[in-house]
């Protein structure tokens, strides 16, 4: 059994929010995803990935901004990790 990993970045902290970014890593070696290899997301929302059989195994926590950095922007906040085993 090899793990395939899909990472979806969503527009809000809700799992049914629209996908704004995505990455994938393939432990089977059948595909070689890389930076900038597609302009269309694999799913429209996080829940759409669940419906297609992806299992959620990690979601970003909701962490308050650090005092003094409330207006800073940095990494994408709403990151969800999914897996499939094949």
């Amino acid at each position: 059994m090899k793990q395939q990993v899909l990472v979806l970045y969503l527009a809000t902290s809700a799992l049914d929010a629209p996908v704004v970014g995505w990455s994938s890593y393939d432990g089977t070696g059948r595909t070689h995803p890389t930076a900038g290899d597609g302009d269309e997301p694999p799913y429209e929302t996080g829940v759409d990935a669940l419906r297609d059989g992806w299992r959620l195994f990690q979601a970003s926590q909701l962490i308050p901004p650090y005092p003094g950095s409330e207006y800073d922007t940095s990494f994408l906040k709403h990151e969800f990790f999914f897996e499939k085993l094949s």
Partner: protein
Amino acid sequence: MRTTLLTSVQVAGFVAAGYLRLDGVVPQELNDQAVDVLEAGIPKVPYGTPLDVAFPAGSFARRLVEVPEVAGAMHSLVGPGPTVDHHAVHVREPRGGEAQPLHADAIIDTRMDAFDVQLMYYPREVTTDMGGTLVVPGSHLRRTNESDTGRYQNLRGQTRLTCPAGTVMLLHHGIWHGGRRNDSDQRRYMFKIRLNPTVPQVRLWDTTDLADPAVVAELSRRFPWYEQATGRLEIHNRVRLWRAMTADPDFDIDYWTTRVNNRPGRAVA
């Protein structure tokens, strides 16, 4: 030397997107010489060398930065007398190379009232399969360090550069970008110059259209990869940059910045 300064609307577009494209502005005569010049290499200079010292009169690089549209855009963004931070020739071999992880150059750079500009020159046409630079519009104000963003492979609204020969891009130092895998049979060339300002970057462009509503429209642009809430902070941060670049402490968009600084009787942060 004639220059073609940018308009306020163009500079606002740069502040929003973090880059500006000048398609096909370099004359074909220069493009035709470029590959041989870049193959031979352009002499290195110490960090911070004045532009006119780094690139002697008549040299290829000097002629490139004196193309009127290029000179005007450079003046509009970094002002007169910039220094060359460094320059480099990037070559992507046919059917070769791996995509770079998404990154911002150098190290995390939090300046909100000054910025460096990276000039990228493409002497040949870049087609989709040649692995043109991946650029994420509107990412330049995010505070991240170099390739810590490497986990992100694709973001909605990203641009995979395709362009005609002789195209120049001018990028804010913080923009997320990366060279893509070259899946074609042709070498891809790019010449990059990082420019440091030596003067305050205030109203350096043609400001006659400063009150044009299109300025606010540009500064208000949201990009498809923005999260709903963080996208609002992007506008706020652009307002801060635009205030610095126009020396107008009251400029605002939809009251975002004024509202959160309204503390009657208290010192303004």
